């Protein structure tokens, strides 16, 4: 089928990509559904077009490009670093807008100099949009998953709580609710007196008890969680039962999450926040600052970029930078760093990765206005 509905600026876009030293990659429209559901969660299921192969394999129409590009890179076993670009149709069930539309973007895989690779991704997205929509004001928002994780770690919260907080970063309603919950003690309930007694003894006795019960109930052969794992988490929960998030930690977290300022002021503000709070945030601040400097070196006007501390994506493969370019509340480009994705998808070694995608239908609308 000739792609007659392709945006008329597609050619220009491919030239922009080529000028940035990227290699074009194409992926099949029909993809195995499992990687998308595994990575993005079941919530995606109602937003993609699912079907089944004759042999019962779950298939879907490509809902985005990042995962297929990464999978193809792993399958081809080509070395890194590689800079890929793509342009093609994606398919999603949307309440407003068409169910099939074009996306294009760049995925930068295996570049070890992460600060400059981050800066290049943001700069590429901004430049390309400025070239396509000249003279219009674009809003750029930037966040950093690693900075939030560093704040949580530096507060010295219990391990389980750190995980919960990090897990909900980017989902602000849920994060606020979680902070409220952690502010009051949570007793461990549902334990028999016998078990409560066991808990006071050493962990080995508890593990033996769980193991025995599993065998008696015929559950053990297929048990997904081992007696050791259950016992360890129960002990951890018990140790937290009397604790609660203290007032000052709660205040600091809320204060951090409300930070919003031009990126030009953000490094100093974060350092000031850490100092005032007496928190040691390690590498995260240095990485943040190095990225901002690399952006300035590339000619990005940092006063035009907004840093928002609470800006993130609640998916566990994002590891650092997240950013968005929008105009009139329509997101035209979104991207970030996803260092955990390649190994989750089956790569045998860690491959740092950063990229962005452009929503061509929204760019077309913005150009028409």
């Amino acid at each position, binding site marked *: 089928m000739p792609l007659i509905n392709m945006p008329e600026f597609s050619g220009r876009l491919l030239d922009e990509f080529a000028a940035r030293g990227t290699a074009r990659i194409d992926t099949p429209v029909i993809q195995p559904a499992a990687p998308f559901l595994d990575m*993005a969660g079941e919530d995606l*299921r109602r937003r993609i077009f699912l079907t089944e192969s004759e042999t019962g394999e779950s298939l879907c129409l490509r809902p985005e490009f990042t995962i297929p590009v990464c999978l193809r890179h792993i399958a081809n076993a080509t070395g890194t670093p590689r800079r890929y670009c793509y342009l093609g149709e994606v398919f999603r069930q949307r309440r407003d807008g068409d169910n099939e539309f074009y996306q294009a973007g760049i995925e930068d895989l295996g570049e070890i100099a992460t600060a400059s690779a981050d800066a290049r991704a943001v700069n590429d997205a901004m430049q390309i949009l400025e070239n396509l929509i000249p003279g219009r004001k674009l809003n750029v928002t930037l966040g950093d998953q690693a900075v939030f994780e560093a704040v949580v770690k530096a507060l010295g919260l219990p391990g389980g709580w750190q995980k*919960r907080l990090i897990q909900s970063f980017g989902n602000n309603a849920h994060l606020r609710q979680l902070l409220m*919950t952690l502010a009051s003690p949570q007793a461990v309930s549902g334990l028999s007196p016998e078990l409560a007694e066991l808990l006071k003894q050493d962990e080995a006795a508890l593990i033996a008890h*769980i193991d025995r019960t599993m065998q008696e109930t*015929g559950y053990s052969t297929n*048990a997904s969680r081992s007696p050791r794992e*259950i016992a360890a*988490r*129960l002990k951890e929960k018990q140790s937290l039962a009397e604790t609660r998030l203290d007032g000052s930690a709660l205040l600091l977290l809320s204060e951090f999450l409300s930070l919003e300022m031009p990126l030009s002021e953000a490094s100093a503000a974060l350092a000031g926040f850490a100092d005032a709070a007496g928190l040691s945030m390690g590498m995260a601040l240095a990485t943040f600052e190095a990225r901002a400097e690399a952006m300035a070196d590339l000619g990005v006007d940092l006063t035009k970029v907004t840093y928002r501390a609470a800006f993130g994506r609640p998916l566990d493969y994002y590891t650092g930078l997240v950013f968005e370019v929008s105009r009139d509340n329509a997101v035209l480009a979104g991207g970030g760093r996803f260092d955990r994705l390649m190994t989750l998808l089956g790569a045998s070694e860690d491959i740092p990765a950063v990229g962005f995608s452009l929503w061509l239908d929204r760019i077309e609308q913005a150009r028409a206005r």
Partner: protein
Amino acid sequence: MSTITIALPSKGRMKEDASAIFERAGLPIVAVGNDRSYRGKVDGRDDIEIAFLSASEIAREIGAGTVDFGVTGEDLIREGLADADRKVEISARLGFGRADVVVAVPEIWLDVETMADLGDVAADFRSRHGRRLQIATKYWRLTQQHFSGSHGIQLYRIVESLGATEGAPAAGQADIIVDITSTGSTLKANHLKILSDGVILKSEACLVRARKPEHDGNARIKALVEAIRKAV
């Protein structure tokens, strides 16, 4: 005068209980032809037609507006229809067919009592076991709403299960289940426990009306709903 079509369960306790309520409401139902017939009428009311359907078909037909009313479980309405409240109205709760749609985990997961606990376990699952936490259920929609919507848990996979869902964890097909239970005894027999905030829906049989414009201000529709409400 247009005919009002009511879909009723075609067999079992649900059929008997529904008939009893209509009888008490002064709307005695008789089969057209023989007892096994799938058409019925209300004695003395030529303006009402009864269609005997399976419970899940009833949910679908009310959603599509091909019948005016139906008697079916709320679980089937909420699971079967996207935007259920926009398409249908629950006119009366009938007090029978009570059952809960619940999240149940292996009893031996001593550390898991709440959805928050489950969220912790799900977050770690992939790094510990090389795959996402798996949930066996036939309730895709309700599970997603409860996990993703109400509790912000994204990292799990649904494994479709059309029967004997309670056996899935012991058989290794899934880690936990979302299923319907009336007494909880089957769950207990399979060494599963319900989370303290794991009741997704308290379901019962309902008289459900398809939202149709021609129902507005229709006195017969209003009278029928009131008669059923009084009979409960």
